[in-house]
């Protein structure tokens, strides 16, 4: 019976980490449903981007208020979580504050004191975040794609953090031995008096309860990630690493098209010849994207990384002028459809069964796709280097090259280009007429 708490703790820890691992595997499998794309180039620049943008939050601070609050929560969360190490060791070994045996009291006190100050700062920042969403109602948090789940998700995360910070401070405040050290209780010494009416055994009970709920809360939060926009705390790192390095205006040239065009332009090719061995397989089944499996895996990683902050949408010229297009919705739809495909695979023993649905039309409408000006404002705005524009372009490619479903005026423009080398119906032979006008 003496080891019951240790065993309970070990079981809880294994369950928590085990379920998380299971979902991470699912996440990786889903991302790998995307097409392959070569992102092995320029590693130094990729590492630098990850360090600057994900670790260094360089794009978050473009909006100073949200940026500063976010940095507080981010630093606080990372540093306070060092405390988890002690909790895990204590929990498994049945020790109490093992850190005191490892570090000199002063250093231990300094660490915990820092955590306590950060906990208060995080608590305040989280409250301000909540106020921005729910009281000030910043426009970008109330756009039409922010339906009930995305709004609740965001608030649940904030509540989680408030509760975790409170539990951490209460745990310290009610720890009689820790308070007696008179070091490290920077904040909790002012909370301790709130519990002064309690007997020592009740105080101990509160301390144990706070300790248990703190670690349970962290494990629940860890497992909540997969179901939440909060996944960005992990995926921001790979996402910024694999993000586009070329200029924003450079869109990829489809290789399969290049092959066809080269063949068409080559006067030595016999148009009736059977295709050479192996070339058939090089031509993709589909040009462009109508569903998530047609996108590449970096685009799918983008979708899971999106934390729905809406900076992209608030910078989008189409959205600002009341069009349906919202780059954030493009990312949310991609993730939702990918999750649906993933669940379909789970339910059908690892094989996707046609469900008569796709990303195009069932999630993203043509009206949204055609409203994009390809201005890259969304790409520039994203604090974690997501590229909604590439998905819009790939879906336009499907509409035009597979379905010939461009708006009529664009078909006219393209016909002009084919016939006379300009988007307007002017003769190519008149191209230099301006010289004499």
């Amino acid at each position: 019976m003496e080891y019951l708490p240790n065993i309970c703790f070990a079981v809880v820890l294994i369950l928590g980490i085990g379920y998380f691992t299971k979902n991470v595997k699912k996440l990786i499998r889903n991302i790998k449903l995307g097409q392959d794309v070569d992102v092995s180039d320029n590693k130094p620049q990729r590492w630098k981007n990850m360090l600057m943008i994900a670790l260094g939050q360089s794009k978050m601070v473009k909006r100073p208020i949200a940026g500063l609050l976010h940095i507080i929560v981010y630093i606080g969360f990372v540093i306070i979580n060092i405390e988890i190490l002690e909790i895990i060791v204590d929990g498994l070994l049945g020790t109490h504050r093992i850190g005191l045996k490892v570090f000199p009291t002063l250093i231990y006190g300094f660490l915990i004191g820092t955590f306590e100050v950060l906990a208060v700062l995080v608590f305040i920042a989280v409250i301000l975040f909540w106020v921005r969403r729910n009281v000030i109602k910043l426009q970008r948090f109330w756009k039409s794609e922010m339906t009930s789940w995305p709004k609740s998700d965001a608030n649940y995360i904030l509540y989680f953090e408030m509760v975790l910070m409170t539990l951490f401070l209460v745990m310290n405040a009610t720890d009689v031995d820790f308070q007696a050290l008179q070091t490290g209780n920077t904040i909790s010494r002012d909370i301790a008096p709130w519990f002064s009416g309690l007997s020592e055994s009740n105080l101990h009970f509160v301390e144990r309860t706070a300790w248990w709920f703190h670690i349970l809360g962290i494990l629940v939060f860890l497992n909540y990630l997969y179901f939440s926009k909060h996944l960005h705390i992990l995926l921001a790192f790979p996402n910024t690493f694999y993000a586009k390095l070329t200029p924003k205006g450079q869109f990829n040239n489809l290789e399969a098209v290049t092959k066809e065009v080269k063949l068409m332009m080559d006067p030595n090719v016999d148009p009736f010849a059977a295709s050479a061995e192996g070339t058939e397989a090089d031509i993709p089944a589909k040009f462009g994207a109508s569903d998530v499996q047609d996108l590449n895996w970096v685009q799918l990683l983008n979708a899971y990384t999106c934390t729905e902050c809406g900076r992209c949408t608030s910078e989008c010229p189409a959205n600002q002028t009341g069009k349906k297009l919202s780059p954030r919705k493009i990312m949310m739809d991609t993730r939702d459809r990918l999750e649906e495909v993933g669940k379909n695979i789970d339910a059908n023993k690892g094989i996707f069964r046609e469900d008569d649905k796709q990303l195009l039309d069932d999630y993203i409408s043509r009206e949204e796709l055609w409203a994009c000006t390809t201005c890259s404002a969304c790409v520039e705005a994203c604090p974690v280097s997501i590229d909604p524009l590439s998905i819009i372009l790939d879906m336009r490619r499907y509409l035009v090259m597979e379905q010939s479903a461009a708006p009529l005026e664009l078909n006219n423009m393209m016909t002009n280009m084919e016939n006379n080398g300009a988007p307007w119906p002017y003769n190519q032979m008149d191209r230099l007429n301006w010289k004499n006008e």
Partner: protein
Amino acid sequence: MNEGLKVPTMAEFIAQGKQPEVLFWVGCAGSFDDRAKKITKAFVKLLNKANVEFAVLGTEESCTGDPAKRAGNEFLFQMQAVTNIEVLNAYEIKKIVTACPHCFNTIKNEYPGLGGNYEVMHHTQFLKALLEEGRLSIEGGQFKGKRITFHDPCYLGRANNVYEAPRNLIQKLEAELVEMKNCRQNGLCCGAGGAQMFKESEKGHKDVNIERTEQALDTKPQIIAAGCPFCNTMMTDGVKAKEKESDISVMDIAELIASAQDL
């Protein structure tokens, strides 16, 4: 007006066994659009004044394919690109200047992968270089002290990180450069990109060019400077819609510099 305009073609250069120092890629708007043709001519006047040995492709030029690519027609884009690259490579072109940021972006970024490798400059970058080499001088003239705001073309600014060249030129005119609420990396699109120029916009509560024109008008400018023929059209339409065309003109940077010198 244009007796003095010297616009040699590549074919003429080759016939004389010469290579120009730069190819001026005029673009479809610069060739055919009445408003943009004025920009083309202003830029040519400056090239002539600076004694730049340039050539145009003339009737051998064809659309870069930008609007087709951005509309999703990769086939048409690559057909256009490969045809243009054949012409450019046959003439052994090394350096290209263009007054259209869309042509600039496409040739600079998307042609190399298809076999077209050139040094590509936007005309504002080229003019700035001429100025620095002492081949061209800029004087304020009628624009001295005028309030000018610059609208960043997406495909020059955000797409290729060129923000300073056009601004430096405006400052050289001794004009007062005033910035809009959204400028440089955060510049708001004029609404023409991504082939929107050629179609009606989707349903909304406002046109993008009106939104951008309002931002420009907030700076109380006398002139809205542009660096893209399509932005020029959109902003001109916006100014007209706001009934401000008698007070505010929309001008390309090349036009500003040329008309400051009464060219």
